[in-house]
């Protein structure tokens, strides 16, 4: 059994993963923030019981867990792997999750909304993920009546999700394009087409790893297909531009690119202490060089899996104990040394 991020995304270079999220609420309950513990528990159990055959729709094995009873470290690790959002981390009231073994399909119960369906996949697969989410949505709707309004569409806790309740997003890797001077205006242009681009890691000034998430800005007034189309087009456009710059860089300064990636690889393969920031920068350079064919690995490697693996909660889970910052850096270097394949 492979988790979704352990596969290397086939097809378009620069595109890491796709995600579809649908927000839904039941007609008969107020939204989660207004429910007390007793009603929250009742709702979560009703949903869990009502959706117990969910595995048959997806032909997958699902597990149920109560988020409020889960160890915090496990919750953070799920957030690092993008299964949960930060609202689900801080939620104290009873809430739950139905998660497929591959972690590509998750249904979060009673967090921001009563139901949040999430589909994840490596590569550019918004269309396929939407079809699956649509099916799952119908399956749930056969069992529970949704809060829906002819005018506003699916009603959600936040007005930013009302309508389709759909957030379609694609994570792209833009190490060269993002260094360019025109990058911020490029991102601005994207918002005019209805797509929002934000850095995945790090703070606003510096996005280490150069991973960017493109998602739809609006959820109301457009059909699901139109939303998916907008995000897909933005992802293709940005990665195409990235690839043009990269092609140019190989033509003009191949030796510099090679030097850079071999140095990065050397540090990743032999260093004894690695901060998250440095690891992300070096892994990002390796990711670009592998995709450009500047270096070749002996075994197939998903650099994105390494990027997910070097985050604090995951490293602490591997070590099976809480780690100080210093110990984390050591554990991170160890993890990378172990997982990084040799170069050809």
């Amino acid at each position, binding site marked *: 059994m492979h988790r979704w991020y352990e596969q290397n995304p086939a097809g378009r270079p620069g595109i890491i993963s796709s995600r579809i999220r649908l927000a839904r609420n039941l007609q008969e309950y*107020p939204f989660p923030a207004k429910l007390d513990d007793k009603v929250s528990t009742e709702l979560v159990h009703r949903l869990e019981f009502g959706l117990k055959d969910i595995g048959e729709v997806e032909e997958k094995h699902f597990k149920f867990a109560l988020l409020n009873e889960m160890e915090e470290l496990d919750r953070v690790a799920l957030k690092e792997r993008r299964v949960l959002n930060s609202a689900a981390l801080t939620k104290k009231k009873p809430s739950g999750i139905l998660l497929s073994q591959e972690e590509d399909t998750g249904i979060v119960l009673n967090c921001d909304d009563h139901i949040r369906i999430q589909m994840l996949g490596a590569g550019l697969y918004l269309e396929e993920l939407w079809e699956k989410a649509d099916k799952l949505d119908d399956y749930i709707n056969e069992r529970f009546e949704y809060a829906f309004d002819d005018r506003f569409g699916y009603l959600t806790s936040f007005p930013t999700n009302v309508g389709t309740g759909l957030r379609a997003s694609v994570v792209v890797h833009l190490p060269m394009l993002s260094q360019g001077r025109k990058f911020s205006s490029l991102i601005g242009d994207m918002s005019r087409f209805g797509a929002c681009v934000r850095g995945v890691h790090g703070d606003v000034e510096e996005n280490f790893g150069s991973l960017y998430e493109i998602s739809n800005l609006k959820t109301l007034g457009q059909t699901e297909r139109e939303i998916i189309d907008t995000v897909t087009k933005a992802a293709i456009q940005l990665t195409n531009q990235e690839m043009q710059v990269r092609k140019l860089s190989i033509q003009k300064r191949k030796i510099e690119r090679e030097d850079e990636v071999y140095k990065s690889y050397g540090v990743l393969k032999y260093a004894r202490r690695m901060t998250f920031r440095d690891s992300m920068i070096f892994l990002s350079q390796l990711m670009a060089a592998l995709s450009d064919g500047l270096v070749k690995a002996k075994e197939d490697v998903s650099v994105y899996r390494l990027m997910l693996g070097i985050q604090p909660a995951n490293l602490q889970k591997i070590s099976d104990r809480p780690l100080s910052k210093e110990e984390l850096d050591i554990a991170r270097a160890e993890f990378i040394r172990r997982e990084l394949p040799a170069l050809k």
Partner: protein
Amino acid sequence: MLCERCKIREANIQYTEVVNGVKKEHHFCAQCAKEMDFGVYAAIFDGEFPIGKLLSGLLGIEDDNQGPDKLHQISCPTCGTSYDTFVRDSRFGCADCYSVFGPLMEDSIKQLQGSLHHTGKAPVYQNTEDEGEKGGKTNGKVLVKGVSEEEKELSELDSRLKEALRFEDYETAAVCRDRIRELRKGNETNA
């Protein structure tokens, strides 16, 4: 272009100021912008839901212009969310909040979403009956829960009644109670 305040980081926020008809453009980096005082718009620069918070900024301003007292009194009868809480959290409390606060914030939703009309998917199994009215049309298939319309309305009314009592909203509670009595009576005569 570098941020004109710290002159270190790249400026990615353009701020246009119009004072007495004179337009001035400023360029800041996100960190400086966050540190500076942009009033209600400061919320744009932090948090998980920048757009959501922007909404509360927009509504907050409207609030000042439209005589706040009237709006402060509005609250949702179903879940008890007040206008103040709604503006503060940019978050609805229940499905009915949309009909309570919806008309007040149509402009903001339009600004936020660019539209006021849903055009996407609709639920396959949906009861389109209005609350409190019998004999509405059903859209597509009927719910597969095996519960009659009356029973469904009864259980809904029952939970609304409890909720209303919890928030000491006796007016709504009385309406629910009367409707429950009416329905139960109807059931008895039918049986």
